[in-house]
């Protein structure tokens, strides 16, 4: 339903649109620094480091094993995959599933995360909703269906209004996600103001140094290593070398 083109008061632009951008940005930067202050060193477990390196070695063996002589490759594969004494078969790490409710360190981390990210968002979102309500702030450049109306047009009870016209609360949320690249520019990569990344982390589950189940990782490595076969890359290297010109001309003058 295409409504007539609305002409908005230009003071909306001056006093609503720009302040919201400004506020979002400043709050984001503040969040970054507060997170840095509250951040505590992650204790690295020796076992985890060791395991991750072993997995790396096994992966490299699969990829670059063809540069080793056949026997060396077989020796290493045997070390990893032997049914009785192989590393991946024999070593079973005791995995204590970390219950987020009872594990104290994870609990404090979660609390801190919530405090620095969710709380400001709720507070400021609510304040903006209260302070800047009752009028249309901006128009999104693409047409939207009617189902978006109650979501994006809080506080504006007009049935005939185009769904593309949105309120200030939705402009705030647009900013929260849109300013992500600005944060990267100013604060450098991997900054704590990047909320969408944090939300992604929360969705994919725990993200500590190693996948919390090394046994699974070992199993998948074992399977991958089983099927790899050794094709020696150096089979014909001498013939190839003899065929090509070694370009010694001009090397020693």
């Amino acid at each position, binding site marked *: 339903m295409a409504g007539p083109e609305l002409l908005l008061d230009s003071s909306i632009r001056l006093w609503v649109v720009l302040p919201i951008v400004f506020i979002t940005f400043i709050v984001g930067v503040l969040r970054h620094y507060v997170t840095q202050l509250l951040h505590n060193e992650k204790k690295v477990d020796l076992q985890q480091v*060791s395991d991750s390196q072993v997995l790396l070695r096994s992966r*490299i063996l699969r990829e670059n094993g063809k540069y*080793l002589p056949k026997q*060396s490759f077989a020796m290493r594969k045997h070390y990893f995959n032997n049914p009785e004494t192989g590393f991946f078969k024999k070593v079973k790490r005791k995995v204590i599933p970390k219950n987020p409710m009872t594990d104290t360190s994870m609990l404090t981390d979660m609390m801190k995360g919530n405090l620095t990210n969710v709380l400001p968002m709720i507070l400021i979102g609510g304040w903006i909703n209260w302070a800047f309500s009752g009028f249309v702030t901006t128009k999104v450049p693409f047409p939207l269906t009617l189902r978006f109306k109650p979501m994006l047009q809080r506080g504006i009870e007009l049935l005939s209004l185009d769904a593309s016209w949105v309120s200030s609360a939705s402009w705030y949320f647009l900013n929260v996600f849109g300013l992500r690249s600005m944060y990267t520019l100013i604060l450098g990569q991997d900054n704590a103001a990047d909320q969408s990344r944090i939300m992604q982390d929360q969705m994919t589950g725990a993200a500590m140094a190693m996948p919390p189940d090394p046994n699974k990782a070992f199993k998948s490595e074992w399977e991958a290593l089983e099927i790899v076969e050794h094709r020696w890359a*150096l089979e014909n*290297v001498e013939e190839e*070398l003899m065929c090509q010109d*070694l370009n010694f001309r001009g090397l020693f003058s």
Partner: protein
Amino acid sequence: MSSISELYDVSWEEMRDKLRKWREENYRNSEQIVDVGEELINEHASKLGDDIWIIYEQVMIAALDCSRDDLAWSCLQELKRQFPDSHRVKRLAGMRLEALERYEDANKLYDSILQDDPTNTAARKRKISILRAQGKSSEAIRELNEYLEQFVGDQEAWHELSELYINEHDYAKAAFCLEELMMTNPHNHLYCEQYAEVKYTQGGLENLELARKYFAQALKLNNRNMRALFGLYMGLFATSHQPYTPQNPEAQGFAARNRDEVDCVQLKFQHIHGEGLSC
């Protein structure tokens, strides 16, 4: 003695950039580092800003190499003042004790670091180098093996272990270590060439064949590697003179082919040296 900036007509920024280049590319030209670094620290400390700490570290290690204990001590003091609880600074203090041959004290210091942080690889490696400095190579080998069991990915350590084994004439184990290095860096011609040399030293037809192949690979990766070329030549020469045995009927075919290859390589040598090599 006039300062570096006068001698070479360089500004302090260029000196700082030179130091950074040496640091990143792991150069060990300690005397130069001490000269340039000392001047930077004494004259231009305020202009360097936060870079100065890493320059202190770099200059301190170079000063230990040149046995300039005064300079090393002053650098260490500055770093201790700025980073009082840092393990990295403690390790530098340990290195200074090692340079003064106070190995017991250095060991105690490293043990305290490891108690605090069991995953600190730098402290462990310093302990192993203390053993090596004291000449206890079998213990050093044992400790290094234990270290590598936990940190399999440490290439520096594998290389060190291969050197230790070569000194003990245990070529099979040295070859194993070099294989690890070749696996992780397949395009590095130096590892190929070292491996080939170890195989050549081990001797025996199989090892000589392997050596030849790896020398050839090293040449393929970098055709300016003269050691590899020479190694290839020696390998071909050696294998072409292996006696024909009933167990190895292909040896004769090999020998004939090898003689061709020997001639090929010899021609290439002649190209370089302008005169024939007599066999």
